[in-house]
């Protein structure tokens, strides 16, 4: 039983560490996706229709407190 609990603990620690690491890495992210499997050229994400450059997010301009997102 204790071994199974140890496995559960290990899983939780790994999950927390991985998601924490991801949060650190993507803190300043623009929503781009990490793609990796294979050497094919990576396309833009499916939900970015069109090739126009992404504008800055609306809540970065100015020093006013950020409102909740429209959606």
């Amino acid at each position, binding site marked *: 039983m204790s071994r199974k609990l140890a496995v559960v603990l290990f899983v939780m620690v*790994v*999950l927390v560490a991985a998601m924490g690491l991801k949060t650190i890495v993507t803190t300043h992210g623009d929503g781009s996706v990490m793609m990796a499997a294979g050497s094919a050229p990576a396309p*833009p994400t499916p939900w970015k229709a069109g090739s126009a450059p992404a504008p800055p997010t609306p809540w970065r301009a100015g020093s006013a407190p950020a409102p909740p997102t429209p959606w």
Partner: protein
Amino acid sequence: MPGPFAWFIWFVGLLCEATVLVCAYKRQALRRYFLLNLYVAGLMASEIGRYYILIEHGFKSLQYRYFYYYSDAILTVFLYFALSTLYTHVFGELKAEKYVKLGTILLLAGTALFSYSVVVQSSAKLVTHFVVELSQNLYFVGLVLTYVLWAAILKLRETRTRLVQIVLSLGVYFSLLAANYAIRNLYPGLSAYSVPLVQVFSTFLPLAWAYAFWRLPEDARLAPSRLAVIPR
């Protein structure tokens, strides 16, 4: 359409993947590292599929985008299971196979649950968002798991050269991708360089595994002192 460099790297990557399978077959390592080889075979199949879809529909077509990201997610799950078999190899003598399987399933379920809880708030394209989110989260889980496995290898004084080479190459691969991703997020202006670099990095893993299968026999052993020096 991709430039000549992208085509060249793509072709080199495909060649490296085929080399892994040939080397594994020649060195009778197909069954021993079955999931690793299955991942490489799946990688090859998806590369060929991506090629045909790109030729048929174009680089920015929705077909190519969807196929690319969905196949990437499936391959990430394959790679995750391949990584779990490396745990089975390392902890084989401790008779911990049952616990490795339990941990693998629990961690995958936890990651899927976490990914779902993140994307459930976006109503549009829920499945696609979930697939991409799961794929990314599994990469980071794989990164952490590889470092934990490397620590276990040091602690247990694992000496099987081929196994050490495979785990180390996986660690380098995950680290390169994560570092590249972090740099892309920190300095978006460098994405003209960092995005094509992903392609180059992707050829590293099959190249390292082909080397491990071809040059390092299964019974080759490292001297423990070359792994770690533990003061007494």
